């Protein structure tokens, strides 16, 4: 079981209260997390990554164990603390705009 925190707007959109818990069958990667999020909450498709290119949306960031994973490969295994649910994968909207 891994833990994921979404931006407030996406929690509201998907009707999620608080932190999410996901069970992933294979390797714990950003791609696997996003795939599972979009499978469970289809309305989130396109809000975190482009429908076609699957590129991360520019104003969205990924943080794991206090490290910025925004520019890492989506196929790179996340830290063990994330995979074991001891730490939360944080998906964060950039602080920008008004």
């Amino acid at each position, binding site marked *: 079981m891994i833990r994921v925190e979404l*931006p407030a*707007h*996406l929690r509201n*959109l998907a009707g999620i209260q608080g932190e999410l818990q996901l069970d992933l069958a294979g390797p714990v990667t950003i791609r696997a997390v996003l795939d599972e999020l979009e499978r469970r909450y289809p*309305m989130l*498709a*396109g*809000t*975190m990554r482009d*429908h*076609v290119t699957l590129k991360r*949306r520019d*104003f*969205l960031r990924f943080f794991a164990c206090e490290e910025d994973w925004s520019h890492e490969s989506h196929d790179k295994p996340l830290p063990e603390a994330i995979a074991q649910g001891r730490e939360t994968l944080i998906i964060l*909207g*950039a602080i*920008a*705009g008004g």
Partner: protein
Amino acid sequence: MSSVRVLVGTRKGAFVLESDAKREKWDVSGPHFAGWEIYHVKGSPVDPNRIYASQSSGWFGQLIQRSDDGGKTWAPMDNKFVYEGVPGTHQWYDGTPHPWEFKRVWHLEPSLTEADTVFAGVEDAALFKSTDGGKSWAELSGLRGHGTGPKWQPGAGGMCLHTIVLDKSDPGRMYIAISAAGAFRTDDGGVTWKPINQGLRSQYIPDPKAEVGHCVHRIAMHPSRPNTLFMQKHWDVMRSDDAGDMWQEVSGNLPTDFGFVIDVHAHEPETIYVVPIKSDSEHFPIDGKLQVYRSRTGGNEWEALTKGLPQSDCYVNVLRDAMAVDKLDQCGVYFGTTGGQVYASSNAGDSWAPIVRDLPAVLSVEVQTLP
């Protein structure tokens, strides 16, 4: 007894304003989708409880919301807008080629005959259609691919397809407008398109009479006169009486013919409304006086409508999708401002009063006249 429902899109959410036919007391609900930009909200003429909303955000992209109960509850629909084939390039601001990239939906136009059919005008400019109530979208790519696409370029707000006008007398005919490409018409339901910009003259482009490149801000049509179109261009108010094949300027005695909105009275096809804005670099009314101008002669002769509107220190703008009319016997006219006011007139513009004063900047206003 009839009633009206005003659908307002703002920079930070949607609002639904409802009143009986007197249009004196209003119930305000919202914000719906708080914190998101709501470019447009529009109800189906077939089923007034069916309402579509374009919800977008610089962070999270585009969503389409649908209500089946008149705006009380909403559900997200499909948000996958994918250009057909290889998107190609249009011109960037500096004239260099720039790849087509989907950014947002500016305008949703529900079908006049099918509640599940709705058209979406998007940035970068293209037209999409859904026939399943927004659950899936397909591009009508004949527009973008008809030949002049590589010459289109963005206006200040982006390269957006912002106007979709349907003709109830001819299901195959449709008009659209793009900033800054111009106006286009299809006569076969969107398969093929032709630019309809003859008669337009735009001093700010290299060839002022070019086939495309004109910054059309808005087109309006009265359903009983489907061949007569009215246009608010970047500068100039224009009119066509042959379905856009040729345009004539009807700015007449307007104090400035720059502006964004234009609309037609519900029962008088020659009565039209604009809100003159000072200039392309000063997007506010002249001398801080907010004035709607009305022509009862289809243009050229205009009168200022000021009663109830601020006549000093008013420096708001009225954006292109932010004016609408109701269909009650005494036609109501509505517009929203970037200052967050929504003004209503229940007497065809003779006098005005704000429904609300302090919303986020208003992007769009639509009206439903309910039985």
